[in-house]
């Protein structure tokens, strides 16, 4: 038998059902794997070694839970009561939330074992995991490269078999891009499908929590656990949640897939392009109808996003002021300083470069005299981007694109060039602006051995279509079975 840590949720559930292994053995296998490889990768910022025993005791009566005995890693911007939750920022270094996020409550209810917290870009600001106050996570396929971001620790931990599954969050591609660069599966659900209660807010109109897993089946199993209405999040949707595992059907006959020409342009890596085009052929050979479509406002998505997201972020980050939680500056002026100085010094000490950049950018586009020119304009362009997609989904079941224009880039390559970093989200951002669901899955490798990923989008609450198409592609290919040598 393969090592337990290398298995999927689906495989482990079968072993539990036939009483072949216990949750304690699976947890132990995962912890050993973390000890063996995380020194190289740095995917985790905290491992719950001390609480595993008590967690295993508390799940004893949850054998019928949908996530019974499955180890899961949590991105460090999702609150777990009493346990460090830092957003990879110095400003929250010692923060221990007094409550848990709704997704955590749901995981515990269904018997999950929380293994630890995953590294990320500070406050999810980034596409490389390099803006973390803990330092960068490495890509398990090439330790000189970034794992993607901002959920880079979550994706790298799944890829390196340091967990069975993980949760990430996605504001402009932060689940899908690292999933693509690490060769795993990542789903950004429809806005409102999963409660955001307890997710430390970046851009509230764009943020969603979603699964990062080793295959499509596991993403469906995890969505069954976390999706659904939550009275604590007034933007969560009062729409019944289907059993997503019922969508795991190996059949795409007659499905119509749109291929937007605006995603196959200059700047797209040739090997990534070739892999995605191969995938299109594969789906056609399995009976899907793929036709070119146009999403003309795609090219404006990055600009609209880098006004809207920093605007919302600057507003959300105003709460970090040294009063109620987190860091308070003890600088030279601290002894007898005025309240306003305490705010300023605390924020200067606690926030990293990218956070400061976004706070200033967001404050600027919201400030008097610039609001209409930038923020309101961006919201109107957002409408156009959403209309493009609405129109395509009138005729097509889903849209297929590359997830990221390039494979994983080198650590340090884009860190001092914010614009080039922002452009690495060019294919994932339109999905958040439109609020639709999208999934990334592996579809090939470059000659240098780096994963390439494809992205499938569907209309709002069309996750079932995504699972059906993704599952069919996966069942007829082998990419998801490749593992990095560590």
């Amino acid at each position: 038998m393969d090592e337990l840590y290398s298995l999927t949720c689906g495989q482990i559930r079968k072993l539990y059902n036939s009483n072949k292994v216990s949750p304690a053995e699976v947890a132990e296998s995962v912890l050993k794997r973390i000890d063996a490889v995380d020194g190289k990768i740095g995917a985790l910022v905290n491992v719950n070694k001390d609480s595993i025993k008590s967690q295993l005791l508390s799940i004893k009566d949850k054998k019928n839970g949908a996530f019974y005995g499955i180890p899961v890693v949590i991105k460090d911007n999702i609150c777990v009561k009493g346990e460090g939750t830092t957003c990879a920022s110095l400003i929250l270094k010692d923060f221990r939330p007094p409550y848990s996020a709704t997704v955590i409550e749901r995981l515990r209810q269904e018997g999950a074992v929380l293994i630890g917290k995953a590294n990320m870009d500070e406050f999810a600001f980034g596409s490389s995991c390099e803006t973390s106050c803990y330092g960068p996570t490495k890509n398990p396929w090439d330790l000189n490269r970034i794992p993607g971001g901002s959920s880079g620790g979550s994706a790298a931990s799944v890829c390196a078999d340091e967990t069975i599954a993980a949760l990430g969050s996605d504001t402009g591609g932060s689940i899908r891009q690292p999933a693509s660069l690490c060769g795993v599966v990542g789903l950004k659900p429809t806005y409102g499908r999963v409660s955001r209660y307890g997710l430390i807010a970046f851009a509230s109109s764009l943020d969603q929590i979603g699964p990062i897993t080793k295959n499509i089946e596991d993403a469906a199993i995890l969505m069954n656990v976390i999706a659904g209405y939550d009275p604590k999040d007034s933007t969560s949707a009062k729409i019944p949640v289907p059993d997503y595992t019922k969508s795991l059907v190996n059949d795409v006959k007659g499905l119509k897939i749109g291929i937007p020409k605006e995603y196959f342009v200059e700047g797209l890596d040739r090997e990534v392009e070739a892999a995605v085009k191969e995938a299109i052929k594969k789906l056609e050979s399995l009976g899907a109808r793929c036709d070119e479509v146009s999403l003309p406002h795609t090219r404006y998505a990055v600009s609209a996003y880098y006004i809207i997201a920093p605007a919302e972020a600057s507003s959300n980050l105003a709460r970090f002021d040294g009063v109620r939680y987190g860091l308070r500056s003890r600088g030279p002026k601290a002894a007898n300083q005025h309240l306003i100085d305490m705010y300023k010094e605390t924020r200067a000490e606690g926030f990293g470069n990218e956070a400061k950049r976004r706070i200033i950018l967001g404050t600027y586009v919201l400030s008097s005299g610039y609001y209409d020119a930038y923020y309101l304009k961006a919201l109107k362009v957002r409408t156009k981007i959403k209309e493009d997609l609405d129109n395509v989904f009138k005729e097509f079941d889903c849209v297929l694109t590359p997830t990221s224009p390039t494979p994983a880039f080198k650590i340090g390559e884009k860190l001092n060039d914010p614009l080039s970093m922002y452009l690495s989200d060019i294919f994932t951002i339109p999905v958040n602006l439109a609020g639709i669901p999208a999934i990334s899955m592996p579809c090939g490798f470059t000659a240098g051995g780096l994963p390439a990923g494809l992205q499938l989008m569907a209309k709002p609450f069309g996750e079932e279509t995504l699972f059906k198409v993704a599952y069919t592609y996966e069942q007829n290919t082998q990419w998801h079975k490749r593992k990095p040598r560590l």
Partner: protein
Amino acid sequence: MKKTNIDVVYVAKLARLALSAEEIERLGAQLNGIIDYVSELNEVDTSAVEPTSHVLPLKNVYREDKAGPSLPVDEVLKNAPSKEDGFFKVPKVIE
């Protein structure tokens, strides 16, 4: 194209963020570049377009005005950098 020149010192004051001279210079240059880039949005005709601030067709969400349990005060204060008698403590606000 019109070159942007953001008053970083003024914006930082609005954002309650202390910046060093080096940061003011570096952020200024980077942000001017970003704002120049995003000005491409002016190419899009949005004269007859409604803004999308939220993707869901939601208006105000109300609940019954019923008191429920709140977080315990001492639990919440555990994270406070400074506290006294069940309150958050801050430096003086008024001279």
